[in-house]
């Protein structure tokens, strides 16, 4: 078995065993912490789809994460207040049903990514970075200045949304939902990375001229990847908001974009499982360093700097080696 496969299995197993152990040790906080890591991993997988597979350095993924969060917040807000979201031209009501909320979050994330991507992908390189960052900031300011849904204060949800047959307020059951979603997203991403689309997208990342010379248009590949990326990140945002039963403009801030990117980098860019390792590592650092010092971001910054300057493959690069094996 390849080292990468073993590492994948170890990480997935650790993420599963920790909450199970915490359940028996009666440490509900650890379950919530792991749930957080799992949800952030999904957000990282979303970004990795654009960044790792497509080479699209997006600093605006907080937009999709936050929109997913607000999709959950707004739907649940209307449901808990028994007010319709819209009465004309057709009646739309809020909902407390998770699957429905996920669907809305995915569609919202995808649509936003489609529009932002269609504009930003007209440029490349450093322009693309600045533009995605700017569009992300646009949503942030909009959320702050739009008073209907809490403005700067955000929206609180009294009770976590429901899933048929489960008690979502029980930490371990909510964890199970998120973990299964992570597995589904991982499986889908893993297949997509090896699909015809994945092959052509990888080529477009490495060499757009080559893709054109074989009769394909890089822009369409990038835009598709960016849209899928936004959809996955939107789903993560809805879960994250549900975990906290709270959504605020902070989810849309540029720091969030930066942090999602940090997950991807800590784990290893372009590896399907990289963001899972990265998010877990990030939560671990936050928890352990955060306990040591109030100023733990200094250490995080130093570690990130070290990874970028000296260990570019992230955790996967260190353990597995640099090459990305494909077949």
């Amino acid at each position, binding site marked *: 078995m390849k080292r990468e496969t073993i590492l994948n299995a170890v990480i997935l197993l650790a993420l599963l065993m920790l909450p199970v152990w915490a359940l028996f040790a009666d440490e509900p906080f650890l379950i919530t912490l792991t749930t957080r890591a799992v949800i952030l991993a999904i957000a990282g997988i979303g970004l990795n789809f654009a960044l790792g597979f497509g080479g699209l350095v997006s600093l605006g993924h907080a937009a999709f994460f936050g929109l997913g969060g607000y999709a959950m917040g707004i739907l649940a807000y209307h449901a808990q207040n028994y007010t319709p979201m819209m009465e004309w031209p057709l009646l739309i009501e809020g909902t407390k049903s998770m699957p429905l909320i996920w669907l809305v979050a995915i569609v919202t994330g995808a649509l936003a990514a489609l529009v932002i991507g269609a504009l930003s992908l007209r440029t490349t390189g450093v322009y693309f*970075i600045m533009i995605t960052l700017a569009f992300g900031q646009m949503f942030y300011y909009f959320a702050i200045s739009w008073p209907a849904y809490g403005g700067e204060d955000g929206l609180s949800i009294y009770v976590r949304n429901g899933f048929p047959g489960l008690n979502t307020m029980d930490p371990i059951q909510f964890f199970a939902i998120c973990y299964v979603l992570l597995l589904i997203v991982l499986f889908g991403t893993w297949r997509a990375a090896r699909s015809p689309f994945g092959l052509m997208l990888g080529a477009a990342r490495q060499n757009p001229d080559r893709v054109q010379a074989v009769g394909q248009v890089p822009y369409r590949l990038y835009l598709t990847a960016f849209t899928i990326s936004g959809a996955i990140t939107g789903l993560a945002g809805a879960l994250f908001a549900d975990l906290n039963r709270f959504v605020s403009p902070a989810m849309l801030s540029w720091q969030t974009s930066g942090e999602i990117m940090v997950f991807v980098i800590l784990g290893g860019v372009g590896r399907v499982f990289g963001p899972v390792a990265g998010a877990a590592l990030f939560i671990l650092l936050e928890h352990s360093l955060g306990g040591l010092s109030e100023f733990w971001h*200094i250490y995080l910054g130093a570690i990130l700097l070290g990874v970028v300057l000296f260990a570019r493959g992230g955790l996967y690069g260190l353990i597995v080696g640099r090459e990305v094996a494909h077949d």
Partner: protein
Amino acid sequence: MSILLLIEQALNGLQFGVMLFLMAAGLTLIFGVMGLINLAHGSLYMIGAFAAAGVSALTGSFLLALIASLAAAAMAGVFIEMTVIRRLYDRDHLDQVLATFALILIFSEGTRYLFGSFPLFLDKPEWLSGTVMLPLGIEYSLYRLTLIVVGLAVAAGLFWMIARTRVGIRIRAGENDREMIGALGVNISRLYTQVFALGAALAGLAGALIGAIQAVQIGMGEPVLILAFVVIVIGGIGSIKGAFIGAILVGLTDTLGRFLLPQVFALFMDPSEATSVGSSLASMSIYLLMAGVLLFRPKGLFGEA
């Protein structure tokens, strides 16, 4: 709505614009010459503001505070250029983004460690307080007027430096062909450090000048940084002229949008709703401006097509 109020708002927009230019000019120079995207430019802005607030509190002198902001930001710039940034010139943009993001974390938390979480206040000096009478009977803040004048003077100086001086010639040569200036016997690594220090000093100066009308606090730099990015996208990367036009456009659009849009909506909505819709849209106006430029000129107004 009076025409005088509109003119005053336009002046505010101009003042905002020239300050954005100080940020954007450094960023665009650094990108043009070294090919580097520097997210930590906002941190240099913050360092300038904190240095000014600290020195002003100690000495009570605003001029000393400004000098301190220039010196502190330039020194911080030289320090990170020599330790970190220099290793990034040959790296891809992703590495540059990540490393400079890491620098933001370090600078922000470091500043919080030194100065605490509470905002500092930098008072504008006595001799720049109050208002002046402009032609047409417009009463306008003397300090803001000074900012406009200082900003325009710095812009003029920058244009002159790039067009006429030896360093300017090297900078232009560096933008066109990096190997060429090496071949001409210019010490590239010193040139890079100088350009970086110059950009840093401009950012620090902007931070100090703005610090006197806003709170000096952690994280003050990044919103300005992102606006400066919008300026660069609109103006075209690497172009000082583009940065100037873009900065003024962004400054005016933002300020006038916030002023006018609520009033426009008030024409056909009830006042409180008009204010909320208007101000929400105004908060998006510059990004919509950017989107418009992208649709028609993806390389910016003054970028190479």
